[in-house]
């Protein structure tokens, strides 16, 4: 398998959405190809970093009040 094909399969590999045979081929390839190994490592890191840039927040109290008001005025209709 050449580098181009490996790169196309990188996401399937990361998500474990890949057949065993192809997974082994990728693992063999990255042992000898620094370029593809780098792309795999940095893609995995990109995903990890993306997960930590957002902090989950609670709905602010004021907005919560507006939200329930908006819903409740529809009850009467």
């Amino acid at each position: 398998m050449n580098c181009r094909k490996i790169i196309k399969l990188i996401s399937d590999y990361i998500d474990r959405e890949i057949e065993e045979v192809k997974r082994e081929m990728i693992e063999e390839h990255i042992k000898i190809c620094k370029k593809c190994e780098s792309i795999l490592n940095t893609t995995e890191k990109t995903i990890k970093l993306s997960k930590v840039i957002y902090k989950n927040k609670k709905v602010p109290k004021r907005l919560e009040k507006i939200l329930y008001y908006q819903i409740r005025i529809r009850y009467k209709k």
Partner: protein
Amino acid sequence: MNELELVEKAKSGDNKAFEELVKRTQNKIYNLGLKILGNKDDAADLLQETYIKAYESLPNFEGKSSFYTWLYRIATNFALMKLRKEKYKKISINEIKQASNGNYKLEISDWSNNPQIQYRNEELKEILNEAINSLPPKYKTIFILHDIEGLSLSEISEILSLSIPTIKTRIHRSRLYLREKLSEYFKKKGN
């Protein structure tokens, strides 16, 4: 009371049950809005519109998917509509394809263990945030649902009515594009 029971009660006109469903899901929906739309005002709009629409459409909810998935569908449709109206510059679909077509222009230095990768590196967060925001709406939404919110491919397929291969392609292209942007950052920083 579980979600199914609450949905049934809400459908039969029990407003308290509907409010309980809102209470249980509101933070998730609000955070989805913050992530996709990138600011509090739009996230507040998304939150309100989602539940108003959910309340009004509740009689049509057949329970084929979970209540959550159904809400996500309403919320992402609203987000996509809003994103398409935005004026700031997005990258083109071609640009994102280029970053993932496996050609050798890809930046290949391995920065995955670079000491500058720290949780508190605000500059890095900013670069990544900007890159995510510049993704075309249909890529950005899928990337956030999958890689940040952790939804499965089949859930996203239900939410957006798209085939799984299409979703996989968009996730893959988004990741490689974002990776490329981070690679450029580390290259500038001298890796």
